């Protein structure tokens, strides 16, 4: 197998994630924390992020239904998600979180609903692209790399 070609593909894929605005500089900060002692650190953080973000989005959807026009509650959920997005550099998701919070501030229910749908789309896009990226990295990595965590 041509590992150097796979690594080039992975690098190109990652560049695309930054060029498309899906990721920002914070993701590089997370990458810088990966070392020999934690060779899969970035993927582990991303796995935790998607587990937590799925839960937070689900909680928010339930809150939208169960607590209509409770903008403080909706904002509190979104604040948590925005924080996680910031921590891994999920830039487009973070922007949708901020727009949602702006709509909460304005008491705009339709705006909130629209933002949530966009956020879910961005979430799905980022998840799919990062899954592909890490899959490629695993193929390109050295033999005996750690087993794939479940995303």
């Amino acid at each position, binding site marked *: 197998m041509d590992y150097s070609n796979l690594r080039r593909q992975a690098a190109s894929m990652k560049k695309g994630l930054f060029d498309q605005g899906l990721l920002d500089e914070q993701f590089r*900060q997370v990458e810088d*924390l990966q070392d020999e002692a*934690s060779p899969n*650190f970035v993927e582990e953080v991303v796995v935790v992020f998607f587990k937590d973000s799925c839960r937070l989005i689900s909680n928010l959807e339930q809150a939208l239904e169960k607590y209509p026009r409770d903008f403080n509650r909706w904002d509190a959920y979104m604040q*948590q998600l*925005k924080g996680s997005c910031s*921590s*891994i550099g999920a830039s487009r998701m973070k922007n949708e979180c901020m727009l949602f919070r702006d709509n909460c501030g304005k008491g705009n229910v339709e705006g909130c609903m629209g933002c949530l749908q966009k956020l879910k789309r961005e979430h799905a896009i980022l998840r799919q692209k990062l899954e592909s990226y890490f899959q490629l990295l695993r193929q390109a990595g050295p033999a005996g790399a750690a087993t794939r965590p479940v995303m």
Partner: protein
Amino acid sequence: MASLVKALLVEDARVDALVLSAMLHRFHCEVTIAKNGKEAVDMFFEGKKFDIVLCDNDMPIMNGPEAVEKIRAMGETDVKIIGLSSDKNVQEVFMTAGVDVFFPKPLKIDVLGAMIQEVINKKRNSMV
């Protein structure tokens, strides 16, 4: 390498805890994690000592500023406490509670490095 700095990370968000913990380890800190303000306060109450505390704002059971206030009220005035939040509006609340400094999240590693170096310098000076 023996750890120079004992760090307490008070953080309920798992992603943030992972990233901040890794940053602290990068500076060879011995890291303890509390999942909310009450756990942090209990650790101090049990007599545990830390050189630096990184404290999030919004946590279940007890939030960051409340925990910081209680820690300082115990007489823990030497420990360096850093307030962290993605909400910049809570800076004043944290400062009133008694943090030494507030930083917005995400915390940059070079900023954390500078804080840890201050703690190390202070420890060295106190040993002279």
